[in-house]
Protein backbone atom coordinates (compact mmCIF):
# COMPACT_ATOMS: atom_id res chain seq x y z
CA UNK A 1 0.00 0.00 0.00
CA UNK A 2 1.35 3.41 -0.83
CA UNK A 3 0.23 7.02 -0.75
CA UNK A 4 1.81 9.90 -2.64
CA UNK A 5 0.31 13.36 -2.86
CA UNK A 6 0.30 16.17 -5.41
CA UNK A 7 -1.86 19.26 -5.80
CA UNK A 8 -5.47 18.05 -5.90
CA UNK A 9 -4.61 14.40 -5.99
CA UNK A 10 -3.56 11.45 -3.91
CA UNK A 11 -2.29 8.05 -5.04
CA UNK A 12 -3.09 4.94 -3.05
CA UNK A 13 -1.16 1.76 -3.75
CA UNK A 14 -2.18 -1.67 -2.45
CA UNK A 15 -0.75 -4.99 -3.55
CA UNK A 16 1.41 -3.34 -6.19
CA UNK A 17 -1.60 -1.64 -7.78
CA UNK A 18 -1.81 2.15 -7.58
CA UNK A 19 -5.09 4.07 -7.68
CA UNK A 20 -4.84 7.82 -8.28
CA UNK A 21 -7.65 9.96 -6.87
CA UNK A 22 -8.18 13.47 -8.26
CA UNK A 23 -10.33 15.76 -6.16
CA UNK A 24 -10.90 19.49 -5.74
CA UNK A 25 -11.97 19.07 -2.12
CA UNK A 26 -8.98 19.40 0.20
CA UNK A 27 -10.91 17.71 3.02
CA UNK A 28 -11.22 14.51 0.99
CA UNK A 29 -7.53 14.51 0.08
CA UNK A 30 -6.62 15.03 3.72
CA UNK A 31 -8.94 12.21 4.77
CA UNK A 32 -7.32 9.81 2.31
CA UNK A 33 -3.80 10.86 3.24
CA UNK A 34 -4.52 10.31 6.91
CA UNK A 35 -6.33 7.00 6.49
CA UNK A 36 -3.69 5.47 4.22
CA UNK A 37 -0.67 7.25 5.66
CA UNK A 38 2.73 5.65 6.08
CA UNK A 39 3.09 4.20 2.60
CA UNK A 40 4.87 5.48 -0.48
CA UNK A 41 3.20 5.57 -3.90
CA UNK A 42 4.45 5.76 -7.45
CA UNK A 43 2.85 8.89 -8.83
CA UNK A 44 4.11 8.37 -12.40
CA UNK A 45 2.60 4.91 -12.76
CA UNK A 46 -0.98 4.91 -11.52
CA UNK A 47 -2.81 1.79 -12.69
CA UNK A 48 -6.28 3.31 -12.18
CA UNK A 49 -7.48 6.88 -11.94
CA UNK A 50 -10.68 8.32 -10.50
CA UNK A 51 -12.01 11.86 -10.39
CA UNK A 52 -13.81 12.26 -7.07
CA UNK A 53 -16.79 14.54 -6.44
CA UNK A 54 -17.65 14.98 -2.80
CA UNK A 55 -21.40 15.17 -2.23
CA UNK A 56 -23.47 16.05 0.78
CA UNK A 57 -24.55 13.08 2.91
CA UNK A 58 -28.23 13.99 2.41
CA UNK A 59 -28.07 13.60 -1.36
CA UNK A 60 -26.04 10.42 -1.17
CA UNK A 61 -28.24 8.73 1.41
CA UNK A 62 -31.29 9.11 -0.83
CA UNK A 63 -30.03 6.07 -2.75
CA UNK A 64 -30.31 2.41 -1.78
CA UNK A 65 -28.01 1.16 0.98
CA UNK A 66 -27.51 -2.13 -0.87
CA UNK A 67 -24.20 -2.56 -2.64
CA UNK A 68 -24.53 -3.16 -6.39
CA UNK A 69 -21.64 -3.98 -8.72
CA UNK A 70 -22.75 -4.18 -12.35
CA UNK A 71 -21.09 -4.17 -15.74
CA UNK A 72 -22.76 -1.95 -18.32
CA UNK A 73 -21.44 -0.94 -21.75
CA UNK A 74 -17.79 -1.46 -20.88
CA UNK A 75 -18.02 0.21 -17.49
CA UNK A 76 -18.30 -1.07 -13.98
CA UNK A 77 -20.96 0.77 -12.03
CA UNK A 78 -20.64 0.41 -8.25
CA UNK A 79 -23.35 1.93 -6.09
CA UNK A 80 -24.25 2.04 -2.43
CA UNK A 81 -26.14 4.56 -0.31
CA UNK A 82 -23.07 6.68 0.35
CA UNK A 83 -21.34 6.49 -3.05
CA UNK A 84 -21.55 5.87 -6.77
CA UNK A 85 -18.46 4.90 -8.77
CA UNK A 86 -18.09 4.30 -12.50
CA UNK A 87 -15.01 2.61 -13.85
CA UNK A 88 -14.04 1.92 -17.48
CA UNK A 89 -12.51 -1.56 -17.47
CA UNK A 90 -10.38 -0.78 -20.55
CA UNK A 91 -8.97 2.69 -19.77
CA UNK A 92 -9.14 2.04 -16.04
CA UNK A 93 -10.40 5.56 -15.46
CA UNK A 94 -13.55 6.51 -13.71
CA UNK A 95 -15.51 8.85 -11.52
CA UNK A 96 -16.55 8.62 -7.89
CA UNK A 97 -19.36 10.55 -6.23
CA UNK A 98 -19.28 10.04 -2.52
CA UNK A 99 -20.01 11.62 0.81
CA UNK A 100 -17.08 12.81 2.87
CA UNK A 101 -16.53 9.66 4.88
CA UNK A 102 -13.70 7.15 4.91
CA UNK A 103 -15.95 4.10 4.60
CA UNK A 104 -17.04 4.95 1.07
CA UNK A 105 -13.56 5.24 -0.40
CA UNK A 106 -12.45 2.20 1.60
CA UNK A 107 -15.23 0.10 0.05
CA UNK A 108 -14.60 1.47 -3.42
CA UNK A 109 -10.90 0.64 -3.23
CA UNK A 110 -11.64 -2.90 -2.05
CA UNK A 111 -14.13 -3.49 -4.86
CA UNK A 112 -11.88 -2.00 -7.56
CA UNK A 113 -9.08 -4.29 -6.41
CA UNK A 114 -11.34 -7.36 -6.49
CA UNK A 115 -12.36 -6.50 -10.06
CA UNK A 116 -8.84 -5.84 -11.31
CA UNK A 117 -7.51 -8.99 -9.64
CA UNK A 118 -10.38 -11.10 -11.01
CA UNK A 119 -9.83 -9.77 -14.53
CA UNK A 120 -6.14 -10.62 -14.32
CA UNK A 121 -6.84 -14.05 -12.80
CA UNK A 122 -3.72 -13.55 -10.72
CA UNK A 123 -5.05 -13.06 -7.22
CA UNK A 124 -7.81 -12.17 -4.83
CA UNK A 125 -8.72 -10.50 -1.57
CA UNK A 126 -9.20 -13.11 1.13
CA UNK A 127 -11.28 -12.72 4.27
CA UNK A 128 -8.38 -13.56 6.53
CA UNK A 129 -5.71 -12.15 8.77
CA UNK A 130 -2.16 -12.41 7.50
CA UNK A 131 1.31 -11.88 8.87
CA UNK A 132 4.96 -12.41 8.06
CA UNK A 133 7.40 -14.39 10.17
CA UNK A 134 10.90 -15.39 9.17
CA UNK A 135 10.40 -14.00 5.66
CA UNK A 136 7.31 -16.16 5.04
CA UNK A 137 3.68 -15.04 4.98
CA UNK A 138 0.77 -16.90 6.56
CA UNK A 139 -2.95 -16.29 6.08
CA UNK A 140 -5.46 -17.15 8.80
CA UNK A 141 -8.96 -17.52 7.35
CA UNK A 142 -12.24 -18.02 9.10
CA UNK A 143 -15.65 -16.59 9.78
CA UNK A 144 -16.10 -13.83 12.31
CA UNK A 145 -15.20 -15.21 15.73
CA UNK A 146 -12.91 -17.94 14.37
CA UNK A 147 -9.87 -16.12 15.73
CA UNK A 148 -8.44 -13.86 13.02
CA UNK A 149 -8.02 -10.85 15.25
CA UNK A 150 -7.11 -13.03 18.25
CA UNK A 151 -4.20 -14.66 16.47
CA UNK A 152 -2.84 -11.27 15.38
CA UNK A 153 -3.09 -9.97 18.96
CA UNK A 154 -1.09 -13.00 20.14
CA UNK A 155 1.71 -12.46 17.61
CA UNK A 156 5.20 -12.15 19.11
CA UNK A 157 7.33 -9.04 18.39
CA UNK A 158 9.16 -10.57 15.44
CA UNK A 159 5.89 -10.99 13.50
CA UNK A 160 4.90 -8.33 10.97
CA UNK A 161 1.16 -7.81 10.63
CA UNK A 162 -0.20 -7.58 7.09
CA UNK A 163 -3.87 -7.30 8.12
CA UNK A 164 -6.27 -8.70 10.68
CA UNK A 165 -9.21 -8.72 8.28
CA UNK A 166 -8.63 -8.71 4.51
CA UNK A 167 -5.54 -10.27 2.99
CA UNK A 168 -4.18 -9.43 -0.42
CA UNK A 169 -2.92 -12.49 -2.33
CA UNK A 170 -1.35 -12.11 -5.73
CA UNK A 171 0.69 -14.36 -8.00
CA UNK A 172 3.75 -12.73 -9.51
CA UNK A 173 6.30 -14.63 -11.61
CA UNK A 174 4.82 -17.93 -10.49
CA UNK A 175 5.02 -17.16 -6.77
CA UNK A 176 2.07 -16.35 -4.53
CA UNK A 177 2.68 -13.27 -2.38
CA UNK A 178 0.75 -11.82 0.53
CA UNK A 179 0.77 -8.02 0.71
CA UNK A 180 0.05 -5.72 3.61
CA UNK A 181 -3.26 -3.89 3.40
CA UNK A 182 -4.80 -0.94 5.21
CA UNK A 183 -8.05 -2.87 5.64
CA UNK A 184 -8.32 -3.41 9.39
CA UNK A 185 -10.85 -5.39 11.35
CA UNK A 186 -11.45 -5.38 15.09
CA UNK A 187 -7.78 -4.68 15.73
CA UNK A 188 -8.21 -1.23 14.18
CA UNK A 189 -4.60 -1.14 13.02
CA UNK A 190 -3.56 -1.15 9.34
CA UNK A 191 -1.06 -3.69 8.11
CA UNK A 192 2.55 -2.93 7.28
CA UNK A 193 3.55 -2.07 3.74
CA UNK A 194 5.49 -5.24 3.04
CA UNK A 195 5.01 -8.43 1.04
CA UNK A 196 6.32 -11.95 1.48
CA UNK A 197 5.94 -15.31 -0.27
CA UNK A 198 2.78 -17.01 0.94
CA UNK A 199 3.85 -20.15 2.83
CA UNK A 200 0.43 -21.41 3.94
CA UNK A 201 -3.22 -20.61 4.43
CA UNK A 202 -4.63 -21.79 7.76
CA UNK A 203 -8.34 -22.38 8.32
CA UNK A 204 -8.92 -21.31 11.91
CA UNK A 205 -10.93 -22.86 14.68
CA UNK A 206 -10.68 -22.85 18.47
CA UNK A 207 -9.71 -26.09 20.26
CA UNK A 208 -8.42 -27.33 23.62
CA UNK A 209 -4.99 -28.05 22.09
CA UNK A 210 -2.98 -26.68 19.18
CA UNK A 211 -2.90 -28.88 16.12
CA UNK A 212 -2.46 -28.59 12.37
CA UNK A 213 -4.25 -30.95 10.00
CA UNK A 214 -3.89 -31.33 6.24
CA UNK A 215 -6.74 -30.29 3.96
CA UNK A 216 -7.46 -32.12 0.68
CA UNK A 217 -6.97 -29.98 -2.45
CA UNK A 218 -10.66 -29.80 -3.41
CA UNK A 219 -11.64 -28.89 0.13
CA UNK A 220 -8.87 -26.30 0.13
CA UNK A 221 -10.20 -24.71 -3.06
CA UNK A 222 -13.71 -24.73 -1.61
CA UNK A 223 -12.45 -23.03 1.56
CA UNK A 224 -10.64 -20.37 -0.44
CA UNK A 225 -13.76 -19.73 -2.52
CA UNK A 226 -15.81 -19.31 0.67
CA UNK A 227 -13.42 -16.63 1.88
CA UNK A 228 -12.62 -14.74 -1.32
CA UNK A 229 -14.20 -11.30 -1.50
CA UNK A 230 -16.05 -10.77 -4.75
CA UNK A 231 -19.08 -8.59 -5.25
CA UNK A 232 -19.92 -8.57 -8.96
CA UNK A 233 -22.62 -10.82 -10.41
CA UNK A 234 -20.61 -11.28 -13.58
CA UNK A 235 -20.48 -14.85 -14.91
CA UNK A 236 -17.16 -14.48 -16.70
CA UNK A 237 -15.39 -13.00 -13.70
CA UNK A 238 -16.94 -15.54 -11.33
CA UNK A 239 -15.37 -18.21 -13.53
CA UNK A 240 -12.01 -16.46 -13.29
CA UNK A 241 -12.27 -16.25 -9.50
CA UNK A 242 -13.04 -19.98 -9.45
CA UNK A 243 -9.93 -20.68 -11.52
CA UNK A 244 -7.81 -18.39 -9.33
CA UNK A 245 -8.95 -20.23 -6.19
CA UNK A 246 -8.20 -23.63 -7.74
CA UNK A 247 -4.77 -22.43 -8.91
CA UNK A 248 -3.93 -21.16 -5.43
CA UNK A 249 -5.19 -24.35 -3.75
CA UNK A 250 -2.87 -26.38 -5.97
CA UNK A 251 0.14 -24.15 -5.32
CA UNK A 252 -0.15 -23.04 -1.68
CA UNK A 253 -0.53 -25.44 1.28
CA UNK A 254 -3.92 -25.04 2.95
CA UNK A 255 -4.25 -26.53 6.43
CA UNK A 256 -6.68 -26.59 9.30
CA UNK A 257 -5.33 -24.86 12.41
CA UNK A 258 -7.17 -25.58 15.64
CA UNK A 259 -5.65 -23.45 18.38
CA UNK A 260 -5.76 -22.47 22.00
CA UNK A 261 -5.95 -18.69 22.21
CA UNK A 262 -2.52 -18.06 23.70
CA UNK A 263 0.88 -17.14 22.28
CA UNK A 264 2.07 -20.76 21.94
CA UNK A 265 0.18 -21.05 18.67
CA UNK A 266 2.88 -18.97 17.01
CA UNK A 267 5.45 -21.68 17.82
CA UNK A 268 3.80 -23.62 14.99
CA UNK A 269 4.73 -20.83 12.57
CA UNK A 270 8.39 -20.47 13.59
Amino acid at each position, binding site marked *: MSVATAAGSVSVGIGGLTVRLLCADARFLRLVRNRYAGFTGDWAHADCEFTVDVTTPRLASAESDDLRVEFDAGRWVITRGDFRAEFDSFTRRGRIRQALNPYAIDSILRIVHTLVLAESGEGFLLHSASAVRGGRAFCFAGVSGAGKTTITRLAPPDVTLLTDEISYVRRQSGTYWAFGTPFAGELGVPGDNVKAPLAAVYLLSHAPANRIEPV*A*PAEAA*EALLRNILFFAADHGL*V*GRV*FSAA*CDAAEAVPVRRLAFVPDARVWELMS
Partner: protein
Amino acid sequence: MSRNAYVSVSPDVAARMIGGEMMVMSVRDSTLFVLNGTAAVLWESFDGTAPLAQIVSRRICAEYDIGEDEAIRDAEALVAQLASRGLLVISESPSAGEVGTNSWRP
Protein backbone atom coordinates in the same frame (compact mmCIF):
# COMPACT_ATOMS: atom_id res chain seq x y z
CA MET B 1 -35.32 -38.83 -17.98
CA SER B 2 -34.45 -41.51 -20.54
CA ARG B 3 -31.34 -43.64 -20.29
CA ASN B 4 -30.85 -42.79 -23.96
CA ALA B 5 -30.71 -39.07 -23.22
CA TYR B 6 -27.67 -37.04 -24.17
CA VAL B 7 -26.04 -35.07 -21.40
CA SER B 8 -23.73 -32.09 -21.75
CA VAL B 9 -22.17 -29.58 -19.39
CA SER B 10 -23.89 -26.20 -19.21
CA PRO B 11 -21.86 -23.27 -20.56
CA ASP B 12 -22.58 -21.52 -17.24
CA VAL B 13 -20.31 -23.88 -15.36
CA ALA B 14 -16.73 -23.64 -14.19
CA ALA B 15 -15.09 -26.97 -13.45
CA ARG B 16 -11.68 -28.25 -12.49
CA MET B 17 -10.27 -31.65 -11.57
CA ILE B 18 -8.21 -31.06 -8.45
CA GLY B 19 -6.68 -33.70 -6.21
CA GLY B 20 -8.68 -36.43 -7.92
CA GLU B 21 -12.00 -34.67 -7.31
CA MET B 22 -14.05 -32.63 -9.76
CA MET B 23 -14.90 -29.14 -8.52
CA VAL B 24 -18.01 -27.86 -10.27
CA MET B 25 -19.42 -24.38 -9.79
CA SER B 26 -22.35 -22.57 -11.34
CA VAL B 27 -21.15 -19.13 -12.40
CA ARG B 28 -24.77 -17.94 -12.16
CA ASP B 29 -25.23 -18.43 -8.42
CA SER B 30 -21.81 -19.73 -7.28
CA THR B 31 -23.32 -23.05 -6.13
CA LEU B 32 -20.44 -25.47 -5.64
CA PHE B 33 -20.36 -29.26 -5.97
CA VAL B 34 -17.44 -31.62 -5.43
CA LEU B 35 -17.73 -34.85 -7.42
CA ASN B 36 -15.53 -37.82 -6.68
CA GLY B 37 -15.09 -41.39 -7.90
CA THR B 38 -17.55 -42.46 -10.57
CA ALA B 39 -19.37 -39.12 -10.48
CA ALA B 40 -16.19 -37.37 -11.60
CA VAL B 41 -15.67 -39.96 -14.35
CA LEU B 42 -19.22 -39.42 -15.60
CA TRP B 43 -18.84 -35.64 -15.53
CA GLU B 44 -15.77 -35.83 -17.74
CA SER B 45 -17.76 -37.91 -20.23
CA PHE B 46 -20.73 -35.55 -20.52
CA ASP B 47 -20.00 -33.97 -23.89
CA GLY B 48 -23.46 -34.49 -25.39
CA THR B 49 -22.30 -36.89 -28.08
CA ALA B 50 -23.12 -40.28 -26.51
CA PRO B 51 -26.28 -41.47 -24.74
CA LEU B 52 -26.10 -41.83 -20.98
CA ALA B 53 -26.49 -45.63 -21.07
CA GLN B 54 -23.52 -45.96 -23.38
CA ILE B 55 -21.36 -43.74 -21.15
CA VAL B 56 -22.30 -45.74 -18.09
CA SER B 57 -21.58 -49.03 -19.84
CA ARG B 58 -18.20 -47.97 -21.19
CA ARG B 59 -16.86 -45.73 -18.41
CA ILE B 60 -18.43 -47.22 -15.28
CA CYS B 61 -19.49 -50.86 -15.72
CA ALA B 62 -16.41 -51.76 -17.76
CA GLU B 63 -14.05 -50.26 -15.18
CA TYR B 64 -15.82 -50.67 -11.83
CA ASP B 65 -17.43 -53.67 -10.16
CA ILE B 66 -21.00 -52.48 -10.48
CA GLY B 67 -24.07 -53.86 -12.26
CA GLU B 68 -25.53 -52.00 -15.20
CA ASP B 69 -29.01 -51.43 -13.75
CA GLU B 70 -27.64 -50.03 -10.50
CA ALA B 71 -25.09 -47.89 -12.34
CA ILE B 72 -27.74 -46.45 -14.64
CA ARG B 73 -30.02 -45.63 -11.70
CA ASP B 74 -27.19 -43.85 -9.89
CA ALA B 75 -26.16 -41.99 -13.04
CA GLU B 76 -29.72 -40.86 -13.71
CA ALA B 77 -30.04 -39.57 -10.15
CA LEU B 78 -26.76 -37.66 -10.45
CA VAL B 79 -27.74 -36.15 -13.80
CA ALA B 80 -31.19 -35.17 -12.50
CA GLN B 81 -29.69 -33.46 -9.45
CA LEU B 82 -27.06 -31.52 -11.39
CA ALA B 83 -29.47 -30.65 -14.21
CA SER B 84 -31.96 -29.26 -11.68
CA ARG B 85 -29.21 -26.85 -10.55
CA GLY B 86 -28.49 -25.81 -14.13
CA LEU B 87 -25.12 -27.52 -14.28
CA LEU B 88 -26.01 -30.10 -16.92
CA VAL B 89 -28.15 -29.93 -20.05
CA ILE B 90 -30.26 -32.97 -21.04
CA SER B 91 -31.24 -33.51 -24.66
CA GLU B 92 -32.96 -36.24 -26.68
CA SER B 93 -30.47 -35.81 -29.52
CA PRO B 94 -26.70 -35.49 -29.70
CA SER B 95 -25.30 -31.99 -29.44
CA ALA B 96 -22.79 -32.35 -32.30
CA GLY B 97 -20.25 -30.85 -29.96
CA GLU B 98 -21.60 -27.31 -30.02
CA VAL B 99 -22.44 -27.40 -26.33
CA GLY B 100 -20.71 -29.06 -23.48
CA THR B 101 -17.25 -27.87 -22.79
CA ASN B 102 -16.16 -29.91 -19.84
CA SER B 103 -14.62 -27.00 -18.02
CA TRP B 104 -14.86 -23.26 -18.17
CA ARG B 105 -11.61 -21.50 -18.88
CA PRO B 106 -10.98 -17.77 -18.98
